[in-house]
């Protein structure tokens, strides 16, 4: 039903995005769960993948608080059209997120909705990719009820609960020697100091993509186990930061 009427303007909250510098650490990027402020609101406007969306949750009437809602929907017609090779990304992207030689902390809070069905396959919520030449590199994903990341092999990062915000911080000191570390809800769950941690093929910078990427929907034809046990998948994201220290990147520790 749509009725047209004339009425008075209401005051509304606006989105916030900015760069702040704290007394010690430096915040290079931050986003409070909005689609604006990213280099690309959705890196893959490929036909079919555009069923995936990255949107701000909550209308402005709920105040200045937002979350980024990343949703991907399985589309049989698209998969068939692409001979089951079409990808399923719905991500916002930040270009030039880090260069080789730098030490950066990437923080955010994520939430799987209460109706999320765990399955034994990779649903990526953030990835770090080389830019020139571009290509895949480090995926960070949910599989069953655990978080994983592929840095020098698959690292099990522990469990994630549905319907509860989980805070994650990934540290990449790019180069050789490099360092990779990962925190979940303030607990350090992975630490790989003194490793070679350079983007592949001589790339000197990486981009940060975050949202949802249902990797298993590519290259599979339903029915195929539990890969297709839920055809619409959503992950909520909030409090994104890239900072020079853990303290500044930690989503629960914003100043």
């Amino acid at each position, binding site marked *: *039903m*749509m*009725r*047209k*009427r*004339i*009425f*008075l*303007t*209401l005051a*509304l909250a606006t989105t916030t995005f900015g760069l702040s510098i704290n*007394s*010690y650490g430096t915040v290079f990027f931050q986003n409070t769960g909005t*689609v604006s402020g990213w280099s690309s*609101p*959705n890196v893959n*406007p490929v036909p079919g993948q*555009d069923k995936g*969306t990255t949107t701000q*949750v*909550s*209308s*402005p*009437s*709920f*105040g200045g*608080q937002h979350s980024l*809602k990343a949703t991907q*929907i399985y589309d049989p017609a698209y998969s068939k059209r692409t001979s089951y090779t079409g990808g399923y990304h719905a991500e916002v992207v930040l270009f030039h997120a880090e260069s080789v030689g730098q*030490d950066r902390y990437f923080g955010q809070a994520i*939430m799987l*909705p*209460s*109706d999320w069905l765990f399955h034994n396959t990779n649903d990526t919520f953030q990835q770090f990719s080389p830019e020139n030449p571009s290509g895949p590199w480090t995926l960070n994903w949910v599989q069953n009820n*655990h978080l994983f990341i592929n840095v020098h092999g698959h*690292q*099990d990062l*522990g*469990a994630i*609960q549905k319907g*509860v*915000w989980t*805070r994650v911080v990934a540290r990449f000191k790019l180069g*050789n*020697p490099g*360092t990779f570390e990962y925190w979940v*809800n*303030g607990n350090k*769950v992975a630490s790989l100091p*003194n490793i070679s941690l350079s983007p592949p093929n001589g790339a000197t910078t990486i981009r940060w993509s975050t949202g949802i990427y249902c990797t298993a929907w590519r290259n599979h034809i339903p029915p195929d186990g539990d890969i297709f046990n*839920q055809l*619409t998948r959503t992950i*909520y994201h*909030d409090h994104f930061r890239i900072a*020079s220290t*853990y*303290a500044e990147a930690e989503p*629960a*520790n*914003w100043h």
Partner: protein
Amino acid sequence: MEILRKMNRIRSLPALLLIAGLLSHILCFAETPLERRHRLYDMAPVSPANPVVASVEGTDIEIPLSEYRAYVASLPGADKRSPLSLARKRELLADLLNEHFLLWEGYRQKIDQREAVTKMLEQTKIILLESALTETEVGAKAKTPDEEDKLAKELRSRIFDKADIFVSNEAYDEVRKIIRAKNTSTQIVPAATTNGAGTLPKGYVLAKCKAGSVTIGDFLSAYTQAPVSSRPNIETQQGMVEFLKQMLEDSLMVAEARERGLEKSEAVREKMQLNRNVLTRMGVLDELSDKASAMVKKPGFEADLRRWYDDHRKSRYTYQDSTGKEQVVPFAEEHESIQNDYLENLMEQMRAEKINSLRKGQKIQINEKLLE
């Protein structure tokens, strides 16, 4: 008479014992109200089937079996682990108790009442309400993923269709005019205050319903950020309705969930409390990380840092280059990252000290039998 009195005493003794037993059972397993359940991994109430493994006298720390089991399952590599020894189980329980001491401290400091926490929880509630409504309406009815998808979409459409959406004629004309002028495939940046001479400000409300309102600025921003292929033609009323539906569906779902009282449902309250607990515990850790960061400004920090680097030069800052030759990470060149390593280490130390101080003098009761 004396005999009768004795008989009465004998008869009432078992009854008294029974009552006393029942009372103690009730007291032992009296359910803590959900909003006072301070857990981090599992919210199941204490019961005969879920007894307390560990508790701390004089605090609200009480860890039932379900919480302990959920914690163990949450650890990395939990699915590949062989059965745990009793000593390892004790260690894990001690680690979990540490987490609970931090949580207890967070509530003592009233971190749960801080604005940052309450605001985040309000936002979380919106998401939980939407999920709860979908679960109530779709969950059990759907037999297949396809069906679940279809029912979920139908639910959203139904809720949108029954809502009264009031659209301003002036604002609608304005939006059409701007989109026509700018060409929908290019970036549209609404002006800061007005969209041109004699036109409406971007804050002017285009559409309003019980769940909220959409301004001209909101609409243009959402429209231009949507992939071109999913932008309907808003020249037609149908196209306009279609896009407003995309924008308002979530809010309308939340409004509907509130109307149905789902805010008071066990599922929503439980998740809210779990989120509150997680945030409250994190608040304590945040203070520690602030403290560690503040050390940078203290006199002598640089000397301490250098000492730490020297102490860890062999174990942490020596690596093999591509020819297999040992190289040392130079202090000056890698100052930032060495400082980060040092601060992380300080934070871990402070955390251990904080936990020790919270544990000091506390009487911890552990039901060892439950660990076996």
